[in-house]
C-alpha cells in the first residue's frame, strides 16, 4: 500500500513537473514569438478609450485619445476627450501640450526624468520590447488563446504606485487589445485600443507640433 502511495505520488509529481515545464516552455515560446512579431513593427497608429477607476472620483472617468509610434523612437500620446492634452517624443526631445494652455512646452528626457519614465513605459507596453520588459517585470502568461499577460514590477519604487499590468492581446496576437494598470490602492485604469493600423505610413507632421 505504501509503495502504491509512493508510486502515485511520484507519478503525480512527474505530471506536475512536466505540466509546469510544458507551461514554461509555452510561455517562453510565446514571448519569443511576440518579440519576433514586435520587431517587424515599424509604425503603429490607433485610437483608444480609457476607463479610470479612481477612488478620488465619484464615477468611472471615461476618456478618448490617439496613439502613434514610429521606429526607432517617435511617440505621440494624446487625449481628445474630455479634455485636450498630450505629448510627443522624438528621441530625447519632446513637447507636451494642454488645451487650456496657449503654448506647448518643450522637454528633454534627460532633464525631465518623469517624462522619460512615462514614455519608456508606454513604448514598452505597446511595442512589446520583451527583453526590456523582462528586466523590469516578472512576466506571466495567464492565458494562451487569446493571450493575456501579467507584468509585476520588480523594483520596489515602481511597486509603490503600480501593482500589476495586465495585457490583453487580439486573438491573432498581432497587437494589443487592451491594457489594465492596477495600483496598490485598488485603483485601476483600463485602456482599450481600436482602429489599430500596423506599419502604415503615418501622416507627415505626426511627430511635430506647432
Amino acid at each position, binding site marked *: 500500500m505504501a509503495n502504491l502511495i509512493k508510486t502515485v505520488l511520484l507519478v503525480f509529481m512527474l505530471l506536475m513537473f512536466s505540466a509546469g515545464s510544458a507551461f514554461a516552455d509555452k510561455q517562453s515560446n510565446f514571448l519569443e514569438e511576440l518579440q519576433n512579431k514586435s520587431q517587424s513593427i515599424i509604425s503603429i497608429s490607433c485610437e483608444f478609450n480609457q476607463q479610470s477607476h479612481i477612488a478620488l472620483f465619484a464615477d468611472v472617468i471615461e476618456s478618448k485619445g490617439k496613439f502613434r509610434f514610429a521606429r526607432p523612437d517617435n511617440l505621440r500620446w494624446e487625449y481628445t476627450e474630455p479634455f485636450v492634452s498630450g505629448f510627443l517624443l522624438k528621441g530625447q526631445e519632446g513637447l507636451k501640450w494642454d488645451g*487650456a494652455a496657449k503654448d506647448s512646452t518643450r522637454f528633454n528626457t534627460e532633464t525631465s526624468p518623469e517624462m522619460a519614465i512615462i514614455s519608456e513605459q508606454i513604448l514598452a507596453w505597446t511595442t512589446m520590447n520583451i527583453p526590456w520588459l523582462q528586466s523590469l517585470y516578472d512576466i506571466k502568461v495567464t492565458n494562451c488563446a487569446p493571450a493575456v499577460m501579467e507584468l509585476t514590477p520588480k523594483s520596489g519604487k515602481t511597486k509603490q504606485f503600480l501593482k500589476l499590468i495586465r495585457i490583453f492581446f487580439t486573438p491573432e496576437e498581432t497587437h494589443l487589445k487592451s491594457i489594465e494598470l492596477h495600483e496598490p490602492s485598488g485603483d485601476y485604469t483600463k485602456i482599450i485600443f481600436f482602429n489599430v493600423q500596423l506599419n502604415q505610413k503615418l501622416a507627415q507632421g505626426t511627430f511635430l507640433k506647432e
Partner: protein
Amino acid sequence: MSNLKRHKPTANNKKAQAIRILILSFFLLICSIPLFSVSFSEDISAMLPSGANGEISRDFALLQKSPLTGKILISISSKTLGEQKLGEVAESMAVRMNTPILSVENNAVNPQEVIKFLIQQAPNLTTHDDLKKLHGITTEQSIEQNLAEAKKLLISPAGLGMRSLLAADPLNLRSIYQHKISSLQNLPRLKIDSGQYFIAGKNALLIVAKSDIPMTDSRNGIKLLDRFKEIKQITLAENRLTGTDISIVFLSGHRYTVANSTVIKSDILTVSIISLCALALLFFFTLRSKGALSIFLAPGVAIMTGLGTCAFIYPNMSAIVIGFGAVLMGISIDFAVHTYFAMAERPSDKTNALRKVSKPVLFGAATSCASFAALYISGIPGIRQLSIFSIAGIIAACAFALFFIPAFCNSFLKADKQQPAFKINSNKKIIFGTTFIVFAVSILGAVNNNFDTELKKLGYISPTIAATEQHFQKKWGQMRSRSMLFASGKTMDEALQKNEKAWADIQNNLSRVKAVSLAPILPSKQRKLQSNARWIDFWDKNRAGTEQQIAAQAEKLGFSAKAFAPAMAQIFAAPPQLSAEVLRSGPLAPLAKMFIPASPESDEKQIITMLPDNKLVTDYYTPQKEKELGVRLVAQSRFKSALELEMKRDIIKFISCSGLLVTMLILGLFRNLRRAALALFPAVFGVAVTFGLLGLLQIPLNIFHIVALPLVIGLGADYGIFMVFQEIRALSPWTVKAVKISGLTTLAGFGVLVFAKHPSLHSLGATVSIGITAALCCAVYVLPQLLHFKEGGHA
C-alpha cells in the same frame, strides 16, 4: 689595521665602563616609561600652522565637514555607452557594495515625498510673499483651474504615481512651497536607480560609497582595494563590458594610505641598504676600530630621550613628528664623532682630550639646540613637538658623547703625522670666486622659491593615482570645487538665525551666484512663530470660503464628496514640528546630512550653505562681512593661500629666530666678530645653497624642506665652530677629519633619503644632501683659506 692604537682597558676602566652601561640602561628605561601612556595620532593637522587666532586649524576642521570628505568616490565613465547603460553598471556595482568594507548608503530622495513634506510644513514656512500667493490660489478661478489640472493629471499616464500627492494638495500649495528647495537645483544632478542615487555628469556617473575601514589603516585598506577590484571585475563581466572603453575608477583616502605605506616600506628597504653600505664604507675607510662602534649608539640614545621627553610633555604625539624626529636625530652622531677623534688624538690622556673637545662639543650642541629651539615659535603644533624632541635628543647625544664615549672607546686610529691638517690651495682666488658665484646664484635662485601647500602632495602619489585624480578633476572638478559658508552657534537656533541672515544677504548681494541653502526650509524659532501666525491668521479669514469652493468645484468635476477632506483637515491642523532632527529623519534626510554636519551635544551647531569656490565669492566674504553675518567661508582656494602665507611667515619667523640665536651664541663663544662670522659662514652658505638649488630646480618648498633647515643651520654652525676653534688652539688633523666624517656620516645616514620615492623623505633627503654638502665643503675648503693659523696650517 697597522695604524690602529689599542689601549687595553684596566680593571678600573672596566668597572667604570660597567657602571656607565648601567646608568645608560637605567636612563633609557626611564625614557621609555612615558611611552606607555602616550597616544599617537597620524592626523596631518598636526603639521598645519594654526594661523592667526587658530583660523587655519579651524578652517581645516571645517573642511573635514564637507559632504564628500571621507567618502569613497567611484566614477563610471565611457564615451560610447549611454547614461542608461552607465546607470545599469552603477546599480550592478552598488548592489554588490553590501559589506562594511565597502557599502553604499541608501540616499534616495523621493520627489513626491519631498513635496508632501513641504506642504505639510507650510505653516512653518510661510513668508510674507507667500501670503500673496496663498491669496492667489484660493480664488474661485484658481481652485477651479487647479482641480481641473488635477483631474487631467489623474487620468493621464503621468498621474499614475501622483495619486496621493494630488489628493493631498487640491489647492496646489506645491506651486508655492516647492520653490523653497529651488536652490537645490544648483547641486549636481542626481540619477536615482532602484533606491540608489548616483551623481550624473558628462558621460559619467558617480557613486558615493563608504567604508568602516579608517582612512589611515593601510593594512585593511588593501582589503578595500581588493574588494573594489573584485566588484569591478564581476560587474564588467556580468555586463559584458570587458574590453570596452568603460572606465571605473575610485578615489578615497585609503588609496593614498595604501600607496604611501607601500612606497615607504620600499623606501625604507632601499634607503637602509644604501645607507648601511655608505656607513660601512665610511667605517672601513675612516674609523676601522671596535671602539668607534659605540659612536653609532648616539642616535639611539638621542631618539629614546627625544621620544620620552616628548611623550612626557604631550599626551598625544604626532606619528609624523616621531618619524621625522627619529630621522633628524641622525645628527646626534656628530658629537660622538668629535669626542672619539679627540680621544684618538690623545688616547693616553683622555681627560685632557675631553677637556679640549668639550667646549666645541657643548657649543655645537648649544647652537643645534638653539637652531631647533627656534622651531618652537612655529605656529605648527607638530613642529613645536619636533622642537622639543630634537632639543632633548641633542642634549642626550651631547651628554652621551662627553660621558660615555671616553669610557666606551678604547681603540683608535693612529694619526698620520705626515698628513697635513689642511691643504691650503694656492688658488685662493679660484676658491673665493667659485664660492662667491655659487652664493650669488643661490641667492638669485632662492628668490624663485615658492611653496607647495597642497596637503595631499605631502604624501606619495603614484602615477595611477595621479591619472585617477586627473580623471576626477576633468569629470567632477566643478562639483568638488565648492566653498562652504558655515553658520555656527552654541545652539541650533543661533546657527539657524545666522544661516537665515546669510541667505538673505546672498539673495540681495550675490543673487547670480549658484548657492544652495536650507534656510528657506529650516527657519529659526522666531521665523517659525511668525510663519505660524501668518498661516493661522490667513486661514481664520479664508477657511470657510475655500472649503466651500473646493467642495463645489470638486463636485462639478466629478470628484467624490470626501476626496479632499483629509487634505483640508491637514491644512487646518496645528503646525507640525520642524527642526534639524525632523529634517534629518524626513524625506530630505540625505540633503540634511550634507548641510547639517553631525556634532556632539556639547559642540557648537553648524549649518552649511554651499557656494561656488570662485574669486567673486571669496572676495565678498571679507573678515568684516563674516563678522557682520556671523559666518565663516571655507574654500579650498582660500585655505591654500592662507596656508601658503602662514607657512611663509612661519619660515621667516623661525629662520630669523634660529639665525639670531645661533649668531648670539657663536658671538658669545668667540667674543670676536670675525671668528663668529666665519663660524657662521658654513651654515649661511648651506641654507643659501639649499634654497637656491631648490629654486633653480623649480622644486616647490614644503613643510619637510622647512623642518630640515634647522639641521643645516645647526650642523653648518657646528662645522664652523670646530674649524674656527683650530685658529684658537693648536691645529689638529683629527678635528678636520672629525668634521669631514661628521658631514659624511650625516650624508650617508639620511642624505641618502634623497633616493626615497616618498615626497616627505625625499624632501628631507634633498635638503640635507644639498645643505650639508654645501656647508661641509664651505667648512673644509673655504674656511681654511680665511683662518689665521698659529702654527703651520699647511704642509
